[in-house]
Structure formats: structure tokens, C-alpha cells
């Protein structure tokens, strides 16, 4: 196990292993997202109060899950990079940030679109919406920090620290609806109790969530692979790969 993790920490090994894993995640993501969207948008029953507008949940919830998970992954990767100096963790963290920002935007935007027919407003400064907006700004901060330093090592360390400190926002997002009065309703899903919706509604949602996670993994593997080639361009194994040396 430890040997495997150590090997994974080496860019050359990561490059080889991810080449084999990547296609599976792409296929899984494509199949799950296609099946989930078709099922959720066309076959799942409409809600008794919201009618068809409730189907926005099939994009909103997976995007919001991913937005938060990516930030946590980024913080964990930053932690590994800071303590153990594993370069691959920093490369992965750098590659995750734009997707995380995009997913946060999708969650906010789909929430606004959903808010108009259900709440009667597209934005309200309640704790859940505001903390999610802060998450978007944290992502922008991480991305901007990486571009703000001329030395890559300083940039990586600054971005890792911001990700690790910013992760405090994640429990605030999660529990905002329980700690304070908000316009946003409390969570429909929890680990400990059964979902507050019937199986024919949550099954396609689960498929969409899994599909979004597979997409995130596949995209991160793909982008980290090209980042490895970019950063290690002068290394022997990369030049060998490019056919520059025998």
C-alpha cells in the first residue's frame, strides 16, 4: 500500500497509471451523466408543489456537491504538498481549481434560476447563498494567487495555504441552513436518515452525482498529465517520451 502511494507520488509513475485509469472514468462519466439526465429530465415524476421546475435539482445538487468536494480535495492536496513536498499533489490541486470555480458558478446560477419560480427571487443574502458566493471568491483567490508569483514554489505554497484556511468555509456552507434562519431549505439528503424524497426521484440524482464525480476525476487526471509534461519537460523520461532522446 505504502509502496503504491510512494510510486503514485512520482510523476513518471502517475503518468503511467493515470493513462490506464483515465478512459474508464471518461466512459463512466459519459454513461452516468447521459442516463441520469435522460431519467431525471424525462422520466422522473414531477414534484407535487414545484412541478417540473424541481428538475433543476438534477444539475444544481451534483454541481454544489462537486464545488465543495473539489475545494476539500484541493486543501488535502495542498496539505500533502506542504508537509511531504509531493509535487504531484500540487499539480493536481492547481488543475482542480478552475473546475471547482466553474461548478460553484453552475450551482449558484442554477440556484438563481430555480429561485425565481419557487421563492419569487433569484438572490437573497441568506447564509447558504452568501457562503456559497464566498466559496466562489475563494476559488478565484486560489487561481489568482497561482498567477501572482514569479516563482512557482512561492505560488504553490501561497495557494495551498489559502486552500487549507479556506476549507473552514465548507462546514459553514453545509450547516448554514441548520444554524441560522435561511431562505434555502435544509438538506434533503443526510448520511444518517432516509432521503426526504421517493426513490424514483433520488435514483437519477444519485446517478448524476456519481457521473459528475467521475467527470471530475477524469478531467483532473487528464489535466494533471499534461501539467506533468509541462513541468517535467526537461526530464529525461519526458524527452524520451517525446522522442527527443533515445
Amino acid at each position, binding site marked *: 500500500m505504502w509502496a503504491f502511494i510512494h510510486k503514485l507520488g512520482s510523476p513518471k509513475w502517475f503518468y503511467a497509471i493515470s493513462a490506464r485509469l483515465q478512459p474508464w472514468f471518461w466512459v463512466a462519466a459519459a454513461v452516468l451523466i447521459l442516463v441520469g439526465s435522460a431519467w431525471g429530465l424525462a*422520466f*422522473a*415524476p*414531477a*414534484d*407535487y*408543489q*414545484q412541478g417540473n421546475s*424541481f428538475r433543476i*435539482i438534477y444539475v444544481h445538487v451534483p454541481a454544489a456537491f462537486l464545488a465543495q468536494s473539489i475545494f476539500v480535495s484541493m486543501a488535502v492536496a495542498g*496539505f500533502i504538498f*506542504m*508537509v*511531504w513536498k509531493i509535487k504531484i499533489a500540487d499539480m493536481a490541486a492547481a488543475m482542480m481549481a478552475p473546475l471547482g470555480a466553474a461548478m460553484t458558478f453552475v450551482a449558484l446560477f442554477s440556484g438563481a434560476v430555480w429561485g425565481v*419560480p*419557487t*421563492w*419569487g*427571487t433569484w438572490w*437573497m*443574502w*441568506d*447564509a447558504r447563498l452568501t457562503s456559497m458566493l464566498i466559496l466562489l471568491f475563494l476559488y478565484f483567490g486560489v487561481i489568482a494567487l497561482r498567477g501572482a508569483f514569479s516563482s512557482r514554489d512561492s505560488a504553490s505554497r501561497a495557494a495551498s*495555504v489559502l486552500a*487549507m*484556511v479556506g*476549507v*473552514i468555509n465548507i462546514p*459553514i456552507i453545509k450547516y448554514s441552513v441548520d*444554524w*441560522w*434562519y*435561511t*431562505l434555502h*431549505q*435544509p*438538506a*434533503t439528503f443526510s448520511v444518517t436518515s*432516509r432521503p*426526504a*424524497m*421517493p426513490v*424514483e*426521484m433520488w435514483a437519477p440524482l444519485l446517478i448524476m452525482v456519481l457521473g459528475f464525480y467521475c467527470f471530475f476525476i477524469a478531467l483532473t487526471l487528464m489535466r494533471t498529465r499534461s501539467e506533468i509534461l509541462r513541468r517535467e519537460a526537461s526530464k529525461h523520461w519526458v524527452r524520451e517520451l517525446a522522442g527527443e532522446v533515445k
Partner: protein
Amino acid sequence: MRAKRKQKLFVILGLVSLAAIAVGLTLYALRSNINLFFSPVQIAAGDAPLERQIRAGGMVKAGSVDRDKQSLEVVFTVTDYVDELEVRYSGILPDLFREGQGVVVVGELQQDGWLRADQVLARHDENYMPPEVAQALEEAGYAPEDYQAKAAEVGQKMDAQAEDSGDGRTN
């Protein structure tokens, strides 16, 4: 683990926990300001300022909605099942506005204890269900607030009936 890494690990953990404590204390100090709305209990206790724009929230009391036939004027009661607040509003209500539903009203609290609303927002709860299940619950005589407790039960019953009659309900 080498001493240098161990030291780094403690520095990071220390930094993150300090930041967490700072954020936690800030949020604790701001707790009443982060709440989006006042509940009727808080308003009855005099926590909300008069004649300044505030937000109040709660459930629309069943049977309390009174619409004026000549205009868009509507009067209803918002309750948190402890205290009540009378709300007067003139305008178009959101689609999800109904009795037993959560609402947030934006407006000014008047001297004699009622609220003149400029905006009414519907709150949605975390429960979702297909119309057939909701209808079955209504026919069985349950109030909307009991729906979720009973939804699973009725859903299972409907599935069992479908299986018994062999019509192969697929969804």
C-alpha cells in the same frame, strides 16, 4: 516522520485551527445578524425594530389567508406555532404561496404589531414527492405538515398494491 516535517505539520494544523477559531467566534458574535429573518416569537418579544425594513418568516397559518375581492390586497397570519404575526400585502404572491407553506416577508413592522409587506417570498421545505403520493396523502386526510412522515409509508403501500394487481408499475 522526520522532525522538520512534523514541525511543518504542527505549524499548518495550528494555523488552520487558529483561523477556524477566529471565524467561529466572528460568526458567533454575528449570529443574530446572519439570520435572514425574525420569527414571530422574536417579534412578539420586541426584538425587531419598528417602522424599519425587516424580514420576518414562518408558516402561513392554515385558514388565515383572506384575499380582498376588489384588489390585490391580502391579509394572512404567519406563525411559528408559538406566536403569530399578522401580515398585510398588496401584490402578486409567488406560485408556491399557500397555507401551511413557509414564507419570508419583507416589510415594516407597525406600531400596533402587524407587518406591512413589500415583498413575499415562498420558502420551500426539503421534501419532494410526486403528485400521486401527495394526492393519496391528502385523500387519507393528512395535513401537509405530516406528509413527509407518512410519504414513505404510503409510497410503499402504493408499490405493494401495484405489485399485487400485477400492473408492473415501473417508476
